[in-house]
Structure formats: C-alpha cells, structure tokens
C-alpha cells in the first residue's frame, strides 16, 4: 500500500514536470510551428540556476561559514552538508521555504525566457534543419560548460539542493508533489487561455501560412520571439521544479535525449492539442515509472530502459507514417462551428506541416 502510494506520488511529480515541458513544446511547435529541437537547454537553464543559487542562499541564513559557500573547492565538498543543514533550518521556517520555492520558479522561468529570446535570434533567421542543429548544439554547449565550470553546479559531481518542504514532517513528500501539481495545473490553464486568445489565433495563422499572417498585419518576428520566450520560461520553471524535487542537479543528465522524449510526448499525443500533449506525457511517464518500479523483476541481460527507448522510437516512426496527427488530433478553434469546418478544405489536414 505504502509502495503504491509512493509510486503514485513519483508518477504525479514526474508527470507535472513533463506536462509543463510537453505543453511548452506544444505551444511552440503544435500551435506556432516553431520546431524547438533544443528543449533540454531551457529545462537545464532553470535547473542550473536553482542548483547554483538555492543551496548557497539557504546556507547563508543559518550562518554557514562564508568560505564554505563562496570558495568553490570547499563548496564542492560541503554542498551536501550545507543542503542538509539548510533543510533542517527551513523545517522551522515554512514561510521562508515557500517564498524560496516561488522565487526559484520565477528565477528558473526568467533564465528560460532569457535563453528563449537568445534562441529566437536564429529561429527567425534559419530554416528548420539548420535551426534544429543550432539548438541541439547550443544545448550541448550549455551542458559542457556546466559540467566543467565548477562554480555553477559543481561540475560532474553535481550539487545538492535543500528540501523546501521539510517543515511538513511526514507529509513533506505529499505537500511537495501537491505544490508541483498545482504549479503544473496553473500552467495548463495559462496555456489554454493563451491559445484561445487572439495571440493563439495569430500563432496558428503564422504556422499555417506565415506570409498570409504577415500580410494581415501580424508581426511574425515578434510573435516568434514572444512564443519562444513564453515556451522557454515554462521549460525553465519546469527545470527549477525538477531540481527541487530531486534534491540534486547533475549537469550530465541534460542530454538531447530529454528533448527527444518531449517531442515523443507531443507528436504521440497530438501536436496542436493540449489534451493530446498531456496524454502523451502521461503515457510516456506512466510506462517509464512502472518500468523503474518493476525493473528488478524483468530478467534481461541488459537495462530494460534501452528496450523501452527502442520501442518508443519505432512507435514514433510508425505514428509519423500512419497517424501523423497523433492520438488526439487538433480540433478546430472555438470560433468556428464544426459544420463550417468539415466542409472546409482544412478539415482533413490537422497536423502542422
């Protein structure tokens, strides 16, 4: 029973993180037609800023020796100790802990947005293939810098992050995951409002016919910059949440495989449909978590995750061939009556491109 409960909590935690990532890619690609093949970079940005700042900030409050915090060679050794002590201190100060939780989410989103605005420079200039390569490479550059520049997240060793929910005692995990689900749900609502607003309609117009959207007076360049900034801010906040949930940030975790997983979720679920993206995320995370739980029961001479990646890759290729619109295809916007659409030429072609 306790095992089932902790399994469900883990599922909810990972789902709330990946739901944000999938929705942010859906906003960019599904609605805006911007193929962001560097999703992991923005996710990592949020995680790195949290890893770099949170432990240090918390350590300063109960008066840790400043050289332990600021001298990198010492911080590298003592960061786990500082994080544990910080958790202990925050256990007595829930208000400060929650403020830090919110602050880190905002910081993560800020860093994400900043990186998104940087990424929009190539995004408005390069063709999809060149843009894809640029974004993948930029993400790898960020990872290489993070794993070598020790002041950031202690290089290859990684940095520990204090538990911001230690004050809740035995309910700590429950309240932590509950807050994550709340943040993620708020994001769903926000994105749903955005895509049904005039902004969302302009976004779809840009995706379907960029020249036509521009001819109707939509500033396509500004629209792309805005979309990448918003999408990346959400990914950054998700990264920050990921760091706070796991209690550690390790640079080498942020490889392009994470980008692939988010793409898998969006394309599988249905690009251009938020419910689809969420369904894709739930399917992937559900199987992934179950595999982690039952791994030791599967008698294979290799890690079952590799088999899972292979199967998922094949599934994605088959989907692209036989059902490119995904499990839940995009539905026509609210402003149209369905009868109007079905007679329209657009009815058959739901997926972007």
């Amino acid at each position, binding site marked *: 029973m306790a095992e089932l409960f902790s399994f469900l909590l883990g599922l909810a935690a990972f789902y709330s993180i990946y739901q944000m990532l999938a929705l942010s890619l859906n906003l960019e*690609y599904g609605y805006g037609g911007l*193929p962001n*093949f560097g999703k992991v970079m923005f996710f990592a940005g949020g995680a790195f800023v949290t890893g770099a700042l949170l432990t240090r900030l918390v350590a300063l409050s109960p008066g840790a020796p400043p050289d332990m915090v600021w001298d990198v060679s010492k911080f590298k050794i003592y960061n786990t100790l500082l994080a544990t002590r910080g958790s202990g201190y925050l256990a007595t100060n829930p208000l400060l802990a929650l403020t830090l939780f919110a602050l880190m989410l905002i910081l993560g989103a800020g860093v994400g947005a900043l990186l998104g605005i940087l990424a929009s*420079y*190539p995004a408005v*200039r*390069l*063709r*999809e*293939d*060149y843009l*894809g*390569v*640029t974004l*993948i*490479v*930029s993400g*790898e*550059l960020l990872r*290489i*810098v993070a*794993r*070598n520049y020790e002041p950031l997240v202690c290089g290859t060793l990684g940095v520990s992050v204090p538990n911001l929910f230690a004050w809740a005692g035995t309910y700590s995990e429950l309240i932590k995951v509950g807050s994550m689900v709340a943040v993620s749900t708020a994001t769903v609502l926000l994105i749903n409002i955005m895509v049904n607003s005039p902004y969302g309609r302009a976004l779809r117009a840009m995706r379907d016919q960029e020249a036509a959207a521009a001819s109707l007076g939509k500033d396509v360049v500004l629209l792309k910059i805005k979309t990448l900034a918003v999408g990346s801010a959400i990914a950054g906040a998700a990264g920050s949440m990921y760091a706070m949930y796991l209690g550690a940030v390790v640079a080498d975790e942020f490889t392009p*495989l994470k*980008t*692939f997983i988010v*793409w*898998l979720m969006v*394309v599988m679920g249905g690009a251009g449909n938020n419910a689809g993206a969420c369904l894709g995320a739930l399917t992937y995370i559900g199987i992934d978590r179950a595999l982690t739980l039952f791994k030791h029961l599967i008698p294979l*001479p*290799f*890690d079952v995750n*590799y*088999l899972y*990646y*292979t199967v*998922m*890759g*094949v599934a*994605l*290729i088959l989907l*692209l*061939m036989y059902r*490119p619109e995904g499990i839940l295809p995009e539905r026509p916007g609210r402003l149209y009556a369905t009868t109007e659409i079905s007679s329209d030429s657009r009815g058959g072609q739901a997926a*972007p*491109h």
Partner: protein
Amino acid sequence: MNVVLDALAFSNIIVLSSIGLTLTYITLKVPNFAHGDLVTIGAYTALAAARLLGITPYAAIPLAFIASGMAALASYYLVYRPLDRRGAGIVTLMIASMSTEVILRASLHIFADVMTTSTKSYWRGFLFREEGGQLTSYIVVSTITAILIIISLYLFLHRTKYGVALRAAVENPSLASAIGIDVDKARAVSWLIAGGLAGVAGVFMPFRTPTDPETGWALLLRMFAASVLGGLDAVFGAVIGGYVIGLSEVLGIYLLSGPPLNLSTAYRPAIPFAILVILLLIAPRGLSGVEWRRLLSRMSRGVVRSG
C-alpha cells in the same frame, strides 16, 4: 609533433564520416541525426570481428563498411523513403531522424550489454591497443584510407557515368528522372555509401579513445560542424570542413589548456560546437556559400573609399 599527428588522425575520422553526412543531406535535405551511430556500428563491427574471428581491426574495414552501409540503407528504406512518399515535411523527417538515432543507439547499448554478459569480456569503453612510438600505425592507415577514399569517391562521382547520374539524381531529382535516371536507386546507393564511410571511420575510433555506444553520438555534432563549414550542398566541402574542425579542436585545446589560459581540456568539444553555432549564425551556407568575389570587391571598394 605528437599533437599534430593526433589531430590529423582525429580529422581523418571526422572527414570520412562527414562526407557521408553531407551526401545524405543532399538526397533528402534532412540532417541525419543517426549518422554518428553509424560510426559506432562500424567500431563495434571491428570489435566483434577482432574478438570473434580473431582478425586485426584493419581487416574488418570492409565488414564495417557493409554493416554501417546496410544500417543506413535500412533506415532509408524503412524510415525516410516511406515518409518522403507520404509527403512528409522537413520537421517530420527530422523527428523520424531523431527516432532512428535513439533506436540505433539504444540497440547498440543492448548489443554491448548482451555481448558483455555472454562473452564475459568488456564491450564498453574498449580500445584497440597498439605498441609503438608516436607515429602509430593507425595514424598512417587512417590517413592513407581517407586519401584513397576521397580520391576514389571523386573519381566515381565525377568520372564515371554512374557517378554523374548519381549526382544528377540527388541534386536535381525531377530533372534526372525526366531523362530516365532511377532516382530512388541513386538515393539508396548514396545512403549505402554514406553509411559505409561512417563505418570505416568507426574502425579507427577505438584506436584513439575508449569507445562505447555513445561515442558516435558525441561525434555527430562535430560532423555537423564539418559539413556545415564545408557547405551542406558540397560533398567535398566536408573534406576541408573535416580537417579544419578536427585540427582546430585538437590543436585549439592544446593551445588553450596551456598558459596563460590554463583551460580544462574537458572543454574540448566546446571548440567545434562554438565554431558551428557562430558559423550557422553568420554564414549558414558554409564556406562554399560565401560569395568570395562579392566580399572581396566590397572590401576593396571599402579600402578605396577610405583611402
């Protein structure tokens, strides 16, 4: 001297693999993210041949060519051609390319794990060890192989009837099919050659660095750097691009890690990546895309005006 030789050998690997990357890019205009894994397949074929058949890795070069070439051909026939026929756009092809990459890399992991448990020897982080001084045989062999392959590929593509037809088919498919060239077959041959060259490059990899299923993927972005530098629409541009990227990475980190900067050598991959990002933002069509004549005339005009 040691560093220069090492840089040369590293560049040979990049050149051999990025020629194929450019070739496949020309056929379908899709960056093949799985190209790095074709290199790994070559490396593992050589390892399997060395361990199971007891031959030297050099003798396994033809086997590696066939294995990686077949993998590339399979990905063309099973993934890209069906999608292309369905009229898939570039983003769809890129997602498929990423999926193929994940499938191949995960399969290589499974292969390495299964072989490790079944043969009771390490199939991860393996090396082809060589005794000897600075000028070890693989540097010589890889250089000779690279030169021979470049020359024969040039002769094939420019001096034989079939090669010319092949170039016509991949560069202008509609025109080529109008004069009766089998475009589909030409594309398949291109993928076979591209994969094969990646496989050959893979044989040399374990002579240099410990090789595991992630090795080729780590190499992929350097190949992109080389291909983009040489121009993604110019097959032999990749040769120049490959040598520039390989040399600048190895020699660059040698210079940067010494005084006065004393940078960690782990920043090595950042050099080609930084070159690639800057290149994509300034001259995305590579060296062959820069209009040198116009640039020169503009510069000379500028000199005249300022003078």
